[in-house]
């Protein structure tokens, strides 16, 4: 079409929105789960020993660790149950495979209600190609959605 320089922003609107960058439109400003997710969620490599992960986690406020590849792709999850297994097992051996993940541009209010209905305390947020964005806690989701205490029960 005659343009000298053409660029493809493949991560697109989902990535932009999840990063809290400026948007316009009727739904602009709607809080998303990407904005509410905690980015400092602990991660570990598949080869790391469960015992070492458990020790590291003991010093943080998180009760779970996300197993990621070198590229940051989510492979699995170590929750309390998995962390209580053999300390010499690797994260890959102990992890829960294929945890449910959600895209960062989903409205946080919708997700907060969904988590409440299903009794989920936290969900993983990833990019469409599976890269970890963060961990969304239900409390954070409800707070970001502006749900009152009565609505949270």
């Amino acid at each position, binding site marked *: *079409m*005659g*343009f*000298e*320089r*053409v*660029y*493809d*922003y*493949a*991560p*697109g*609107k*989902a*990535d*932009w*929105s999840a*990063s809290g*960058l*400026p*948007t*316009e*439109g*009727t*739904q*602009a400003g*709607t809080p998303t789960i990407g904005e509410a997710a905690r980015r400092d969620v602990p991660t570990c490599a598949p080869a790391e020993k469960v015992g070492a992960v458990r020790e590291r986690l003991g010093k943080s406020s998180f009760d779970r660790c996300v197993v990621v590849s070198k590229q940051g792709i989510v492979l699995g999850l170590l929750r309390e149950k998995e962390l209580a297994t053999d300390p010499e097992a690797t994260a890959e051996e102990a992890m829960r495979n294929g945890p449910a993940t959600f*895209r960062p541009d989903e409205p946080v209010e919708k997700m907060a209600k969904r988590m409440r209905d299903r009794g989920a305390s936290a969900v993983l947020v990833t*990019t*469409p*190609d599976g890269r970890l964005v963060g961990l969304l806690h239900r409390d954070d989701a409800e707070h970001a959605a502006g749900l009152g205490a009565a609505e949270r029960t």
Partner: protein
Amino acid sequence: MPTSIFKDEVRELLEGGAQLIEVLPREEYQEKHLSGAINIPLKELDREATAWLRRDAPVIVYCHDYL
């Protein structure tokens, strides 16, 4: 062939006067789009639809995500 870029490069290019085009359907654009983006749905993207755009300034196209 377009060059793939990430958000930091998008911001830099926009500061330099790049033109931003969302190629999603009009309804999705109206709900939410990157600030300053114009909408030319992919099915309408041709020389005529882009005739008014500058040829010498960078053009950034985007949709929802990778998929």
